[in-house]
Each structure stands twice: as structure tokens, then as C-alpha cells.
């Protein structure tokens, strides 16, 4: 009985240990390694024509701020066009877009969708055929790019091996609630440490789909956007990687976003991410493994770990269940102290690597006072763990029943809070 519990528990402990070691390697690399940012110095160039695509569904609170920021970008005006895909909005988004199109003819091009499959991936897939520029940048409608960001994101495309680029996401509404502050810490760890370490180590920086871009020829080479992808960004990252394209991360290219201000919105968001990631895991795990002869083994290994990030949640819960059952039957002392330590570490300090990563990132960011919120991240992790597990189980059931997942939009807050649509940024 005890052995039957111990074997799967040790397998789970082993998997968690791999992720723990990965956290430590990434954090130590970010602290001491050479910071690879090869394109950040490109300031003068023959800048190519660029299309910025902004999928929008009921974005009346934020879309004007986004368009103003893009129109004020430091980029040759005759080479920058903005395509906003109004995906069946029922609020004032259409009127705002038409007004901007009238005021900035040829620069702001709204595209009003009234039918077809809902969701960002479908909107991008439907529109990409109409885009003629080689460089396509994609932003979410709540993002506020700085003036220099467009050049920074375009610069990597001078490298012909680069298929996609991703910038850093920084929350702008972080002082709203405890949740926004916790999400700021999480984002900080994810970008300042995780993404940059992957870039430093030549692994798999993720194209995040919200402040980044893709090369049109690369997009076409891998079959374009897939309308049925639940996470079109992860889907695109892996199709590009498997096809041999480089995905690069620019830590210096910061863009502001809204993070969820309440827990129900956050839970919906993380469930959507989990479903998308799990779909990508099922789709790309085998193609990635098969690429081991063409791609460096480190890229394949890191790619698999990244694909499995959201599958770890349900595994952890199973592990806790096994550890509890083992407690009731009595841990076999004849196994020695090391397995006890392994299980105890798994249940407690093993996950400390994530705290180390977040604290390091916040310290690098100069946000050291915010690090005092670190213990509260435990509660955030608990909510994420349960939400991700529920999403995974539901997805499996839906998939067995042949049901289709429907898109859920993240709630916006700006303008509803009276800050003029720029999130309080002067």
C-alpha cells in the first residue's frame, strides 16, 4: 500500500524538483549571466513598413488611449498603419474606431467583424491575409506603448532568423488592489527573470501575443494563425520554434497593461490560459520531441517544460492527495530520512524557488518595498493551483464530450475609474 503511494508521489516530487531547479537556474542566470539583448542598440535604420494589429471586443474604455499612444509613436508615419479588428463589439468601440479612421485616414483602419468564429485567434486568422507588410505587431487593446517601443520591437526583424519578438509587460493599475500588486510581482518574475533568462540561455522565450510581433513570411511558412487555438500566442511560439525560427525577447521593450483587479476576473483569465496551454501541450509535445535532431536538446527540453507549466497544477494536487494518504498509513521509516525530506521539501520549501525568482525580479526592478508582499503570493498560488486544475479537468471532460470551448474576455477597468483613459499615466 505504502509503496503504491510512494512511487507516484516520488515521480511527482521529481517533476516538481525539475521545475524548482529550473527556477533557480533562471534566477541565478538573470543575476549573474551575460544579459543578451542583441537588438536593443539599433536606433537608426531604414525602418520597414509595419502594421499594428489590435484585436478589440467591447473596448470602449481603453481603445482611444491605445490609439493615441500608437499614433504618438516615434516611427515614420507613412510606414505605420494600425488595423483594429472590432470583433462584434456591442458597446461604443465601433463609433470610436470610425471617428479615429475619419481623423487619421490611411493610418487607422478599422475592420468590423460581425460574424464568424469569436475570439482573438479567429480575428487574427481572418485578417492576416489582408496585411501586406513584412512586419506585423500585435497588441491587446488595453496596452499603452511608449513612444520608442515600436522601433524596439521592429529592430529584431532585421535579423532574418527572427520569426517573432516579445516585449515586457508591466502592469499600470498595480496600486488598485492587493491582487494587482501580487500580479505585478508575478509579472515581474515572469518577464524580468524567466523570459530574460531564456533569452540569455538561448532557450524558448515565449511570444506572448500582447506586446510583440511576427514576421509575415514566417507566419505564412508555418500556416498562419490557427482560428481554433485557445492560446494563439503559445501556439505560434511552438509552430515557429519547431519550424526553426528564432523567437526573441526584449526585456528593455516595456509596455503597460491592465491586470485583473478582482479575483473572479483573475480566475477566468488563468483558466483561459490553462486551457490554451494544455491544448498547446497536446498539440506540440510530440512534434517538439521529434525535432530533437534539428533543434538543440536544451531548446527541446525547455520547450517541453514550458508546455507543461499548467499541467503541473493538477499534478501538485494529486501529489498533495498522495502525501495525505501516506500520512494516514504512516511513512515507512525504513526508506530513510532523504525521502521524508524530499516529500517535506516538495510540500513546503521546494516551491520557495518561485519566491526567490519573484523577489529577485522585484529587486532588479527597484520595487523593493513591494517584496514585503511575498507571503501573500501563497494565497495567489493556491487560487491559481485550484483554478488551473479545475480548468484542466473541465477541458478533459469537454474534449471527451466533443464540446467546444467558448472565448471569455478579460474585464477592463480604465475610464470606468475616471482616469481619462490613460490609466493615470501623466
Amino acid at each position, binding site marked *: 500500500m505504502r509503496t503504491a503511494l510512494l512511487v507516484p508521489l516520488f515521480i511527482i516530487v521529481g517533476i516538481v524538483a525539475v521545475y524548482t531547479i529550473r527556477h533557480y537556474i533562471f534566477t541565478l542566470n538573470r543575476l549573474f549571466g551575460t544579459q543578451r539583448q542583441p537588438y536593443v542598440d539599433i536606433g537608426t535604420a531604414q525602418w520597414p513598413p509595419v502594421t499594428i494589429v489590435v484585436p478589440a471586443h467591447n473596448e470602449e474604455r481603453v481603445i482611444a488611449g491605445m490609439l493615441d499612444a500608437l499614433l504618438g509613436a516615434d516611427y515614420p508615419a507613412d510606414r505605420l498603419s494600425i488595423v483594429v479588428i472590432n470583433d462584434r463589439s456591442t458597446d461604443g468601440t465601433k463609433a470610436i474606431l470610425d471617428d479615429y479612421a475619419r481623423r487619421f485616414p490611411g493610418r487607422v483602419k478599422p475592420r468590423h467583424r460581425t460574424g464568424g468564429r469569436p475570439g482573438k485567434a479567429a480575428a487574427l486568422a481572418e485578417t492576416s491575409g489582408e496585411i501586406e507588410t513584412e512586419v506585423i505587431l500585435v497588441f491587446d487593446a488595453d496596452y499603452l506603448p511608449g513612444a520608442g517601443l515600436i522601433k524596439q520591437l521592429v529592430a529584431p526583424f532585421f535579423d532574418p532568423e527572427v520569426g517573432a519578438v516579445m516585449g515586457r509587460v508591466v502592469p499600470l493599475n498595480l496600486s488598485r488592489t492587493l491582487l494587482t500588486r501580487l500580479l505585478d510581482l508575478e509579472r515581474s518574475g515572469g518577464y524580468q527573470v524567466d523570459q530574460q533568462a531564456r533569452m540569455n540561455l538561448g532557450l524558448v522565450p515565449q511570444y506572448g501575443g500582447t506586446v510583440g510581433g511576427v514576421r509575415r513570411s514566417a507566419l505564412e511558412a508555418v500556416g498562419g494563425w490557427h482560428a481554433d487555438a485557445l492560446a494563439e500566442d503559445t501556439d505560434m511560439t511552438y509552430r515557429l520554434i519547431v519550424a526553426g525560427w528564432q523567437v526573441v525577447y526584449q526585456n528593455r521593450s516595456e509596455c503597460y497593461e491592465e491586470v485583473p483587479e478582482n479575483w473572479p476576473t483573475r480566475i477566468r483569465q488563468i483558466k483561459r490560459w490553462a486551457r490554451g496551454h494544455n491544448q498547446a501541450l497536446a498539440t506540440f509535445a510530440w512534434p517538439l520531441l521529434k525535432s530533437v535532431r534539428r533543434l538543440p536538446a536544451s531548446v527541446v527540453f525547455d520547450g517541453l517544460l514550458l508546455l507543461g507549466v499548467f499541467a503541473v497544477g493538477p499534478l501538485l494536487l494529486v501529489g498533495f492527495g498522495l502525501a495525505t494518504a501516506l500520512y494516514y498509513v504512516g511513512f515507512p521509516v525504513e526508506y530513510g530520512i532523504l525521502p521524508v525530506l524530499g516529500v517535506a521539501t516538495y510540500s513546503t520549501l521546494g516551491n520557495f524557488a518561485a519566491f526567490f525568482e519573484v523577489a529577485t525580479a522585484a529587486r532588479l526592478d527597484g520595487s523593493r518595498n513591494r517584496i514585503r508582499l511575498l507571503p501573500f503570493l501563497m*494565497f495567489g498560488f493556491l487560487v491559481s493551483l485550484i483554478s488551473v486544475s479545475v480548468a484542466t479537468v473541465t477541458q478533459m471532460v469537454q474534449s471527451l464530450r466533443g464540446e467546444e470551448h467558448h472565448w471569455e474576455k478579460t474585464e477592463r477597468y480604465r475610464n470606468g475609474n475616471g482616469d481619462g483613459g490613460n490609466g493615470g499615466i501623466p
Partner: protein
Amino acid sequence: MASPVTGSAAAREGLLRTLARRGARGGTIDPHRAMLKLPDAGRRLAMASTTALIGVAGLLASLPLLGTAWTWIFRQAHAFLGLPGTVVQRSASVLGRIHLTVPTLTFDAIPPDGTALLAATIATLAVFGLSFALRGPLIPLAYFVRALALVQSTAIVYFRFWPEYFPYRLSEYLVGQLQAGLVVMGLIPLVLGFTFYLFDLSLIRKLTLTVMILGHLAIFLPLLAMMHAYLVSLGTLVVLPTLFLMFGLLLHVMVFVAFYGWAMSWPSALWQEPRRS
């Protein structure tokens, strides 16, 4: 004395590095946060390892004192809480090599009878139901309370069907708690070594944090063990699994993370004051 310009290559390199960051008015230009990193990895890792080993050695040296202090705390708490039995000392070992004397109690808690199980079931259902009243910003707390209720329900089911197989006695449990706490204490200098000592803080601050956490645990561990004993004496063995699984090691880790988060907010000598805090 040779100036950096005419001196060694290393001195010239250092001067050039300093000049590269000097502004027109003599101030220092900090690199953007996207490019910040820590210098001297080798020296820092060596210092961190040495400091961590000093911390572990200090802890090992204080073990006899720790055993005596824990016994004193147990006796005080035992008298204060009015627990049955007496406080006795037991020899215990960690990793089979480190031996010390730890206190425990002579009384052993009883398994729950039908009434106790019914009371536990009602209380668990009430707590679970009340968790649904926790809404809005309290949702994470609701999740935690539900997890608590779930763990407690496993104990109720276990004692309803297999009470005779419960493998723990309170006296041994208390020794085990102190042993596990000692392992956590031993790990603390090592964990801090590779997650805190690396940063640009004075040796005094690093040692202060270590002593604060170890000092806190040295007092907290026996008090927590006695609190568990008190709750078990009131609520029978049916509460023991929840105390162990939810308020044992996990609580120590929470305390550690809180200390760590606070210490990581201390100012650095290397980087400028925060820009965004």
C-alpha cells in the same frame, strides 16, 4: 602609489568601468533595470557558501542549549495550559548523526468517539458552508478554508472507519514536530545562502536575518507543538491530521517567506534607491 591609469590592467579596467557610468555632472548613470545584474559571481557564491556553513555550524553548536530551552518552554506552557501528564525528555536524532534531547509529554490523546466525530463533522460542514460567505477580495481565504475543511473531512472519514490503524501517538508526534522543525532550522542558512546572501547587503544584515529567523523558530517551534498538544487534548486525535498537514511545516515556511520578503526589501549598496516603490 601607482594611479589607476598607469597601474595594473585590472585597475585600468575598473576605472574605465566607472567612467563609462559617469554622467556629465559627475553623477552615476545606472543601467536600465532591464540590464541590471550582479557582478563578481564567483566571489559572491564563495562568500554565500561560507556564510551558510557558519550559520549551520552556529546552529549545531547551540543544540544542547536549544534542547534545554525547549524543555523549559514546554514546562512553562504545560503549566499555563493545564495539560495532563508531565513533561519528560527524550533523546532524538536528525539524519542519524545529530543527537539532542528534546521534551515531550507523557499523556496520550484519545481517538474520537461517536460524539466527537459528530461534533467534528458539524464543525467542518459549518466551516465549509461559511467559506461561501467569503467573497470579493476574500476569495483566496475562502479557498484556503475549503482546503482546510477538505483535509479535516479526510480525518473524520479515517477515524470513522479505521481508527485502530492511526499510526501516531501524541508523545511521538511532538518529538517528530521538533525534529522536523530542527531540519527546517538547519536548512535555513543553506537556503538563505543561495537566495539572500548573494545580494549586495552587509555581512551584519545577512547574519542578523539568519539569527532573527532561527531565533524566532527556536521559540515558535515548542510553543506551536504545545498549542497542537492543547488542541488535541480538547478535540481528540481527529484534529491532529489537520494540525500536522496545514499548521505544521507549512506555517514555518510562511514565517520564513515573510522574513525573507522583508529582508529582500532592505536597501542595496549596489543599486540606487527604488524608482517605482
